[in-house]
């Protein structure tokens, strides 16, 4: 498949990532955690695809598969025309410079003993993309791009505020001029008043550098704000994908509806008009997912067939797909 024909930077087909559950001294395999269980989606050049869902539904695992930090159990991941799902690590490495990653905890993902200069410049050094003598200039340029003062280059991570650390993380992700950035909960750890600074920075960088984002978060209002399209995950599967607006205005999957209704809105008048769908029970374990549609035990419209059949991800319109037998 040629990425240039359909404008897709990423094409994921039937991706599965199972983690073995082992038992005893011999670490005998007794089962699988089906963290990602047969998902398919594309991300276009210059697009932001949001990935939402509750804790443990497989968002991070999906992101790590795309970055090939995990070798998927099965399925294909086409990045810029090349299927990277099963090529050896040696061949992945040169491709990885086209991908950046930003994580939730900017502190945990930055080496506490390294200077900000080394942190931001490391990817360039690793990929032999820079002469030592040019490093300072390049890092200053990156700092400028993300709104950090270049006089801060010699500081170590704990000398930055949370928001500044996240900017440093973004600088590092941008170092090698990537085309794709996987943003995994990039603002969840930040103060409320700082979150918008980072969201706006990411939007600005996307425009000026033509970046493509996979934006992972559990906060649907943030995801919806920043994304062109949003994919909703539940227990390892994608239940619905739609345009940001369309997902809000006409959600089709019962889980999407419940999720939307649970998101608080900072407006008491709107809040009082909204009907809250309170789901019963809790998310089952991905080690023992329900049969058929994973959502059926908590679904208000499920019937016998939902226990039996895995609903396919059906296309409703050009931009809207849903996986539900009742739709």
């Amino acid at each position: 498949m040629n990425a240039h024909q359909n404008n897709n930077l990423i094409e994921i087909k039937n991706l599965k990532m199972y983690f073995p559950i082992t038992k005893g001294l011999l670490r005998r395999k007794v089962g699988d955690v089906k963290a990602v269980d047969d998902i398919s989606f594309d991300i276009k050049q210059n697009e932001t695809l949001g990935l939402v869902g509750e804790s443990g539904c497989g968002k991070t695992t999906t992101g790590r598969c795309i970055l090939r930090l995990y070798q998927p159990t099965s399925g294909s991941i086409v990045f810029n025309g090349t299927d990277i799902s099963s090529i050896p690590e040696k061949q992945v490495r040169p491709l990885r410079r086209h991908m950046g990653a930003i994580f939730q905890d900017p502190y945990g993902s930055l080496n506490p003993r390294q200077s900000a200069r080394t942190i931001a410049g490391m990817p360039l050094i690793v990929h032999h993309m820079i002469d030592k003598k040019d490093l300072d200039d390049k890092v200053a340029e990156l700092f400028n791009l993300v709104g950090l003062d270049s006089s801060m280059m010699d500081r170590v991570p704990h000398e930055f505020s949370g928001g500044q650390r996240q900017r440093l993380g973004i600088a590092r992700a941008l170092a090698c001029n990537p085309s794709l950035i996987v943003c995994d909960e990039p603002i969840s750890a930040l103060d409320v008043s700082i979150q918008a600074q980072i969201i706006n920075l990411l939007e600005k960088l996307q425009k000026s550098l033509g970046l493509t984002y996979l934006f992972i978060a559990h906060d649907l209002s943030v995801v919806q704000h920043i994304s062109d399209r949003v994919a909703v995950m539940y227990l390892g599967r994608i239940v619905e994908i739609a345009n940001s607006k369309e997902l809000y205005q006409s959600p089709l999957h019962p889980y999407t509806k419940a999720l939307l209704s649970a998101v608080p809105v900072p407006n008491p008048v709107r809040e009082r008009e909204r009907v809250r769908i309170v789901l019963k029970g809790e998310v089952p374990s991905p080690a023992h997912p329900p049969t058929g549609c994973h959502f059926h035990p908590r679904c208000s419209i499920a019937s016998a067939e939902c226990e039996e059949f895995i609903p396919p991800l059906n296309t409703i319109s050009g931009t809207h797909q849903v996986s539900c037998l009742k739709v």
Partner: protein
Amino acid sequence: MSVLLDVKNLRTHFHTHRGLVKAVDGVSFHINEKEIVGLVGESGCGKSVSMLSVMQLIAIPPGKIVSGSAMFDGHDLLKYKPKGDEMRAIRGAKIAMIFQEPMTSLNPVLTIARQVTETLELHLKMDTQTARKRAVELLKLVGIPEAESRLDNYPHQFSGGMRQRVMIAIALSCNPKILIADEPTTAVDVTTQAQLLELMQEMVNRFNTSLVIVTHNLGVVARYADRIYVMYAGRIVESGLSEDIFLRPLHPYTIGLLKSVPQLGQTKSDRELVPISGLPPNLIDMPQNCAFLPRCSYHKERCRLEPWPELHAVGAQHYVSCYVDTRETS
């Protein structure tokens, strides 16, 4: 409407090796009967310390309640000895508290049954049998399935959402006048958060309890709170009815917060987020004037020269602490 708890001019400071932290610096608030009150503000602004001070749960040292009163049932709670019998009779019984991370507030080595019955035996002097029966009822009430058979489980056998339900059951077990929920849903998912908030609302309605929801998430209080206090750097900067705060905000910080958070249903093409510039202050050795000044786009010369303004009334129940009339500027 009668006032249940009336806190005036509360100041709680911490002496640290880096300097004096004025965590709470002149906070006044009240809780009416059967009212749901929201206390919102960013991390470190002093929300928890305010609540813990009223309950006299501040570690002394490094902390010290420097001034203030907290009138409850005709008595000033801050006059009681922190570990004395009078305070003990209030804490957990008359005023109950739920904390952010239930794993740390439930004792991991005691069964759920033990932890629920403990409060009942201590405050309501129930015998073991009666307390156990009541515990089952309470757990059923907060939606623990098969409550009877789960009574002898340990906290780690419960999910985060279920542990929080147990905390709610314990908090309500003595039929308190006030329930303070400090970030009750920060550690759980959004659908669980919705379940818990609906549950708390239902419970306080049923028991005629007042509820204080402490949170950094503005959205959470919009649905439930009758009245809201907005806190910044150890002070209340604005308070009012929910509608006042969300629809007619007046303090530059409140205005800034509302402009900076995304709203469900709006995308980047509908509305650009306007961030608040700069960083929240650290509370060490704060200047005398308004702590929001360095981040404020409305500020005038006066804000620089004069001390942090007192709250003044701008509506029936609407108060704001700012020299600038933001309605004129915008």
